[in-house]
């Protein structure tokens, strides 16, 4: 094998285009005769649609068409169920109600699309939207999760008996017995609120129907071009081969761009075929706050049973999960929460029960973290309270409960988001936590610095939070690797890319096998014309699932290269090496042949290719993991609070990740930094404020607070490597790892900093105002 490229800080292939404004994003697509769309969206969160007068809009100069639900006729169909309920789980209740292209009977969340205007320009389209007169009869709204389930609550879906969207219980061991044996039982209510993914690029879609070739091309800001292609073909009565979906450069995904089908994804291609004109719709930032999915809202009533020495005997969690107005994404998020509420701890008795609730709010689907931060938040909060109650150091109580290295693979006996048994494939947890402790100087800080600073009247706090991340779930991804006559390598895969550097990390995997320069490997992802099969980029699975498919395909191509080269060079394969784009005989430098030459010979114009062999140096391969690979990590933080203003400054931030084999540490660090920044947003800055009428009160970047460069601390990243036995490369996902533990970590640090006030924080996100309230309430008591 040639010198290893895996694990090198290779610069990214995609950067020159991105840095010079030459990379194509969806809004960059220009087509002659392109029309522009704007949607009329509901001001009300819950209202009956009595009528709409679009005549004035239709008459406005420059307007080509205005469509309502009625105009779609039989083509009006709700979106497909994205993820069906788990077949393997017992007595699971699930009521599937999917989002609609345009409101027909009633509006179920503010900002739901009611009509679309197609015009010569976006400006004119927006003028025309203001011309439309809508007759809405406002209805009582469903916003609060608990009220939503009370009898007599207004219904989001009139045909259901209640707002219960799903119910699922899972059990491991016997919690009740464990509880009876416990020395300490803690019961708390923990409330987690909603945030937005807020990718810098809003969603967008361009649809171009070519009447002559009967072919539809769609550029879409999606994380899943292939399922979109398949779904569009089915919806529009076309063959999958008549539809090409391209997910070009995407300005950040973070989950919501995995959601299928958004109303606009259903309407725009349909309208393009109807009008036989290309149409572009680009979501604006305000729309993004209503029309793009969100996540995190849950209320947990959770109970933990411990022994005097701090061992967790059992955990019981009963929680509500807000799915918004529809539930196309099934139980993915609550399942993740259930699987992560045990953290990386050896918990023998566990009972978890979720009720998923419909509300008059924007749809909920995974946002970077996807239910995991909630799970980690509750277990870590409980352990912090327990450590105080039992007088056991916060680190020590965690150490005592971590799953020991010899216990892997560790079977939890409940099912995960992919409906396969939750098995933690591999890990070595304590050393990871230890490294984080060393990096942040935990002992010294607690022993010397903190007491000294507290004497000075300063409020500094430290926190440390271990966590797991289930990653790299199935079903599968595939890839095709081709050696071209130029000697360059072409790789096609189905997953889209949203900034993860796939064009580089995947290229490294291929270059490693074929002994070429990373820059000579061209990755094409997210174009259904290049690769037919696949699902998408989600659940931190790109590097794991697609990465290993590419690795497998590249290995086959390597074998083909060696077979052919050994013939051409009349040398046994084991004497050949692949280096610098050449196949060489180990110790005879001039006895060599280039990959390009071999590729040409493998695809002759004359002569015969031996029966049973394939032309070219190409292979297609697929990879589907038996179950997800579980990564582990630990974050640590030191922060200071101004106890008068409740303003917070993060002084130190440390992460140690064990995500198996590291393909490219540069890219890995970038993923972690970004994850942490979203996590810090979730912990302290980012909250979607819905009022009691389902009105979103902060649908702008002026009021929805994303951390900026002045809020973010420097992040020190450490690595450990425990290869996953589940795949050749030994990789585990890391895309969401940075986000998952942060709210828990932050709450722990705040409590520690305000130790003198003995706050107990049972919610996230926090804010200066909220901390002041919590403190005032405590004072009042």
């Amino acid at each position, binding site marked *: 094998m040639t010198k290893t490229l895996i694990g090198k800080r290779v610069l990214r292939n995609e950067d020159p285009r991105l840095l010079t404004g030459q990379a194509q994003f969806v809004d960059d697509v220009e087509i002659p005769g392109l029309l522009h769309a704007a949607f009329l969206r509901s*001001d*009300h*969160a819950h209202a009956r649609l009595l009528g709409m007068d679009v005549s004035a809009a239709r008459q406005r100069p420059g307007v080509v068409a205005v469509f309502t639900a009625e105009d779609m006729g039989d083509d009006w169909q709700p979106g497909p169920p994205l993820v069906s309920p788990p077949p393997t789980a017992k007595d699971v209740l699930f009521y599937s109600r999917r989002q609609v292209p345009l409101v027909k009977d009633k509006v179920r969340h*503010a900002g739901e699309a009611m009509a679309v205007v197609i015009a010569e320009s976006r400006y004119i389209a927006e003028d025309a939207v*203001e011309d439309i007169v809508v007759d809405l009869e406002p209805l009582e709204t469903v916003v609060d999760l608990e009220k939503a389930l009370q009898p007599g609550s207004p219904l989001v879906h009139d045909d259901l008996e209640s707002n219960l969207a799903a119910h699922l219980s899972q059990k491991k061991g016997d919690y009740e017995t464990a509880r009876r044996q416990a020395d300490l039982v803690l019961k708390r209510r923990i409330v987690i609120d909603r945030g937005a993914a807020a990718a810098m690029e809003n969603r967008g879609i361009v649809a171009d129907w070519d009447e002559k070739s009967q072919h539809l091309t769609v550029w879409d800001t999606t994380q899943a071009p292939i399922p979109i292609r398949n779904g569009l073909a089915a919806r529009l009565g076309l063959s999958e081969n008549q539809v090409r979906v391209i997910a070009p450069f995407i300005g950040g995904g973070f989950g919501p761009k995995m959601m299928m089908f958004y109303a606009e994804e259903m309407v725009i291609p349909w309208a393009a075929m109807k009008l036989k004109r290309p149409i572009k719709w680009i979501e604006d930032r*305000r729309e993004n*706050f*209503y029309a793009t999915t969100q996540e995190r809202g849950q209320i947990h009533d959770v109970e933990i049973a411990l022994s005097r020495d701090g061992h967790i005997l059992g955990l019981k969690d009963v929680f509500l999960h807000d799915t918004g107005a529809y539930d196309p994404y099934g139980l993915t998020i609550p399942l993740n929460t259930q699987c992560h509420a045990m953290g990386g701890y050896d918990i023998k008795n566990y009972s978890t029960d979720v009720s998923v609730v419909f509300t008059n709010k924007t749809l909920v689907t995974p946002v970077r973290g996807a239910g995991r931060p909630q799970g980690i938040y509750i277990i870590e909060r409980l352990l912090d309270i327990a450590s105080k109650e039992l007088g056991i150091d916060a680190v020590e109580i965690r150490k005592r409960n971590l799953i020991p290295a010899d216990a892997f693979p560790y079977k939890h006996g409940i099912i995960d988001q992919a409906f396969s048994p939750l098995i933690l494939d591999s890990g070595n947890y304590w050393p990871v936590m230890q490294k984080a402790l060393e990096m942040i100087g935990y002992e010294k800080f607690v022993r010397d610095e903190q007491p000294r600073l507290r004497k000075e009247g300063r409020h500094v706090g430290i926190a440390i939070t271990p966590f797991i991340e289930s990653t790299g779930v199935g079903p599968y991804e595939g890839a095709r690797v081709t050696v071209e006559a130029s000697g360059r390598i072409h790789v096609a895969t189905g997953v889209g890319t949203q900034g993860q550097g796939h064009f580089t990390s995947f290229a490294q995997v291929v270059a490693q096998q074929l002994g070429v320069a990373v820059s000579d490997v061209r990755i094409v992802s997210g174009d259904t014309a290049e690769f037919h099969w696949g699902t998408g980029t989600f659940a931190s699975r790109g590097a794991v699932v697609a990465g290993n498919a590419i690795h497998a395909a590249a290995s086959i191509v390597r074998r083909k290269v060696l077979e052919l080269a050994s013939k051409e060079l009349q040398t046994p394969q084991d004497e050949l090496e692949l280096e610098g784009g050449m196949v060489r005989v180990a110790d005879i430098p001039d006895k060599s042949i280039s990959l390009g030459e071999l590729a040409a010979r493998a695809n002759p114009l004359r002569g015969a290719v031996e029966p049973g062999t394939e032309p070219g140096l190409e292979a297609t391969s697929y990879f589907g993991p038996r179950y997800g690979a579980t990564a582990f990590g630990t974050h640590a933080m030191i922060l200071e609070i101004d106890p008068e203003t409740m303003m917070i400054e993060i002084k130190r931030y440390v992460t140690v990740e064990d995500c198996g084999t590291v393909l490219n540490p540069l890219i890995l660090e970038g993923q972690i930094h970004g994850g942490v920044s979203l996590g810090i947003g979730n912990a302290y800055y980012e909250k979607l*404020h819905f*009022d009691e*009428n389902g*009105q*979103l*009160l*902060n*649908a*702008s970047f*002026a*009021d929805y607070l994303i951390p900026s460069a002045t809020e973010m601390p420097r992040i020190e990243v450490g690595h450990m490597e425990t290869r996953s036995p589940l795949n050749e490369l030994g990789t585990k996902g890391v895309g969401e790892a940075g986000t998952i533990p942060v709210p828990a970590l932050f709450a722990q640090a705040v409590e520690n900093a305000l130790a003198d006030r003995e706050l107990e924080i049972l919610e996230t996100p926090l804010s200066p105002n909220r901390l002041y309230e919590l403190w005032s309430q405590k004072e009042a008591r």
Partner: protein
Amino acid sequence: MRIEGQYTFDGPREVLWELLQDPKVLAACLPGTQSLRQVGEHEYEGEIGVRVGPISGAFAGQLTVTNEVPPVSSTLTVEGKGKVGFLKGVGNIDMTEQGPGKTLMKYTGEVQIGGKVASVGQRLFDSVSRGMIEQALGKLNEMLKARVASR
């Protein structure tokens, strides 16, 4: 959003009550309202023009007066919708005499704002609604004083 407050008028309660029965008076008090058409016994319609500095929205408005207990209390419901969104306000007013020629009005209510203004203008609601109420009651007091003077 909850609103609560009180205002002392310079006039007797009966006269104040009398004024509140007059759509012209109500129109004059509602900021930016030119006129109100009476559409039912206690129902009025008109254009309410809310203006906050550069931000101005025309709302097709409706005013309903219910559970009247002359000359003590009643419930005013204002509803309006326009391009920038919608607003709905329900307010209970309760008037007690405060010695000769003084009337104390206590008001409590809910203001609901929706649509564009709600989604990007939230930081202004509180002061805007308080400002508008102050403005309306101030105007009403002016007219009350005028009416008293004209007697």
